[in-house]
């Protein structure tokens, strides 16, 4: 069972405590959201790269020429 370390700042005493079922569910939900965010971010990046490549093609520029132009 996953655990957490809790330190009581009033005493300085740290305890290792097993997570409750709710806390485990929260961790799992967070992981699922993080994965969904990663997929969405990569999709957005791919779309931007495709749009950029399309514009360069229309302009007849290579990536290197675009880099020189844009500085």
């Amino acid at each position, binding site marked *: 069972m996953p*655990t*957490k*370390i*809790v*330190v009581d700042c009033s005493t300085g005493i*740290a305890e290792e405590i097993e997570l409750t079922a709710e806390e485990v569910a929260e961790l799992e939900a*967070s992981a699922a959201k993080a994965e969904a965010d990663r997929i969405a971010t990569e999709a957005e990046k791919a779309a931007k790269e495709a749009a950029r490549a399309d514009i360069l093609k229309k302009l007849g520029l290579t990536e290197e020429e675009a880099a020189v132009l844009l500085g």
Partner: protein
Amino acid sequence: MPTTYKAIATVTVGAGGTSSIDFSAIPSTYTDLVLAISARTNKSGTSSDLYVQFNGVTTATYSFRRLYGDSGNAVSDSLTNNASGGFVGLADGSTATSSTFGNVSVYIPNYTGSNAKSWSADAVMENNATTLTYLGIYAGLWSGTNAITSISIKEYNGNNFVQYTTATLYGIKNS
């Protein structure tokens, strides 16, 4: 001369690892808080994102913007009204150079006030400069208006902190 910057509590993770590092019963006698973290996780990959929760709140009350980058790229992104928590930095993941850790410093001003709470953070991964590494700066806002009495530190993908990860909470007084 009074002590104006004092270590309140510190945690070092043991051999079994842990999913969360929590500071509870934070005294209200300081003006600001500083959280110093040195972390490594068992997340697959070279890096992992760290976030904090205040007072156990898991509702959509955390917003932040970060600017981070690696050896060749810089990225700026943000999350608004996130329920999981607020990003504060980066930790080395399981495939980063062995025995290296990400280092994070989080500044939380006016943590006992009755307004929304802000934080600023800077983070850098340690990687012996042989492979990809990240650094970043973060600015966030928690819309909770209660004084901060507890802080939880977690890894965004639900992975564990590994042994020798440390976190220290400091209190700062303005006089």
